[in-house]
């Protein structure tokens, strides 16, 4: 697997327990970067984990996200937005670069757990079980991990105050 360069040396912005719970609680996770022309590229992730050192480990399918992964391999900046299915509470993490890693064995049970919560959340807000299951499906053999140090964190819940940056 091609790897991008090392992570930023910046001290990660500390995420509160609430944000960590949101990140690992079966939320929707969207990832964006940019191509060489500066045009946005985006994709959906399966889930994410917050590591003890404060870095974020985002799991996504390689095949559905080839252009996004290629951009990250070229050290393009990255943004990750986590959104709760039940109430749209949301936050965004930005980093100047990310590191690509192979998914490891303990990623899979965690992704299964998160995707199960995600699926339940979709049904709770009105999606049919068929839709929720179809929307949540992923190929465990295709997963790749994207690790990044949160350099900036923003509240993203729609409304007054959306886009407010949390203290670094």
């Amino acid at each position, binding site marked *: 697997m091609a790897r991008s360069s090392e992570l930023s040396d910046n001290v990660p912005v500390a995420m509160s327990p609430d944000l960590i719970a949101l990140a690992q609680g079966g939320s*929707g996770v*969207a*990832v*964006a*970067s*940019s191509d060489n022309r*500066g*045009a*946005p*590229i*985006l*994709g*959906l992730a399966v889930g994410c984990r917050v590591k003890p050192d404060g870095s974020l480990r985002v799991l996504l*399918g390689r*095949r*559905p996200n080839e252009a996004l992964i290629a951009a990250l391999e070229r050290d*393009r*900046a*990255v*943004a*990750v*937005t986590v*959104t709760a299915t*039940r*109430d*749209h*509470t*949301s936050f*965004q993490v*930005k980093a100047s670069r990310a590191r690509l890693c192979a998914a490891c064995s303990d990623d899979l049970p965690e992704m299964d757990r998160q995707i199960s919560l995600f699926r339940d959340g979709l049904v709770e*807000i*009105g*999606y*049919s079980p*068929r*839709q929720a299951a*179809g*929307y949540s*499906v992923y*190929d465990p053999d295709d997963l790749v991990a994207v690790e990044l140090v949160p350099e900036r964190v*923003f509240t*993203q*819940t*729609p*409304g*007054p*105050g*959306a*886009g407010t940056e949390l203290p670094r």
Partner: protein
Amino acid sequence: MTAQRIDGLRRALEGVMASVLATCDADGVPNVSMISQVHYVDPERVALSYQFFNKTRRNVMATQRAAVLVTDPGTLSHYRLELAFEETRTGGPLFESMKAKLAGIASHHGVEDVFRLLGADIYRVLSIDQVPGPILPPETDRPSLLAATRRTFASLDACGDLDDLLDGVTACLEREFGIAWSMVLMAGTEDGRLYTVASRGYSTTGVGAEVAPGEGVIGVAAQENTPIRIGHMTREYRYGAAISEIARRSGVVCDAPRLIPFPGLAAPRSQIALPIAAEGQVVGVLFAESDEVMRFGYEEEDALALVAAHLGARMLLLRKEAADEIAEDPDASPPSGDHVTVRFFRADQSVFLGNDYLIKGVAGAILWRLLNEHRDSGRTEFTTRELRLDPSLRLPLHSENLDARLILLRKRLEERGGCLRIEKSGRGRFRLVASSAITLEEPDLREAGS
């Protein structure tokens, strides 16, 4: 570059599944957010609402580029759309449609002043890429909306009066479109409120229930003269609720959210309201709702908009035919049965049967006129024409108002199940049937004279 056509993706633009928007600043730093809707504009363009996403807005102004990811709710196939910003519209039909939908959502949460559309950002679609991945087989049991619309037109064409037409259209919605809950509301009250004249599927008819202009999807559809569709009430409720909570904490709004002031589903998941127009004026609203998520899509909106337009045309035709009717001679028949006192209050033209409220406004004035004439002359047969020409009733300009008021009055009397009925007795004619002796009182006059 070959134009990208997105007509085939309209289901993915319904917003059933959350859409994602990404932009970059001039340095290529991305920004990504969930968005409530990607609006279909035409085969080559979409529109995004410009409201809160300030960073997104700044990025778009700087780079003119965006990318969205949308999902077909049937197949769960994802599509990436590469977009080039063209313009921001702050007026016109598209803006009004998006603004009204947003206003309809916001009104359910009491945050009309916060949840505001500042502009409709129009984008040209540069490319469409289907995201590789498993998809579900498309549903094959979807009915033909075009055939359903054609059959509905034929049914409405067979209706000989407004009463049949209004009940007929809700019956058609159920029979042809499988829409179990629907209403027809008429416009034209003095204060611009709409009132329910026909409904189907509810435990109570809701006849006479009123909606203020601009209130909910119905009031906004009437006010803006554009179809309003909320396809995922639960999601959008929660979306609005998240905003509402933040707004209240910020002290932006203080009032509790208002509820829809008419009988309807306690927890609808989809609603659609289509203005009924005649000669360019909104004369009513056709409303339907469902407990299913995303029950009404772009295709259903198109079909029901055709039904509402045909309904308006049929109303106009019936009105013109009724205007040609000649008044018939009165026909007296004696009342019988028990006794009831009917009270009329001039202040709001309200009518009470005994001590029970019946109706108010123009419909109340009509009933009071009929009862007085019945008392003075024994007459029971009346024509809509004579009412239309009676200046004392101060009828609004559109004659549908008179017919709709009579329907409202007839249904209210039916619901009371009491001593008074109104029956159709021919084209443009109706009969007042009193099964009790009637005493008329005007407490206002008595008090004024004492």
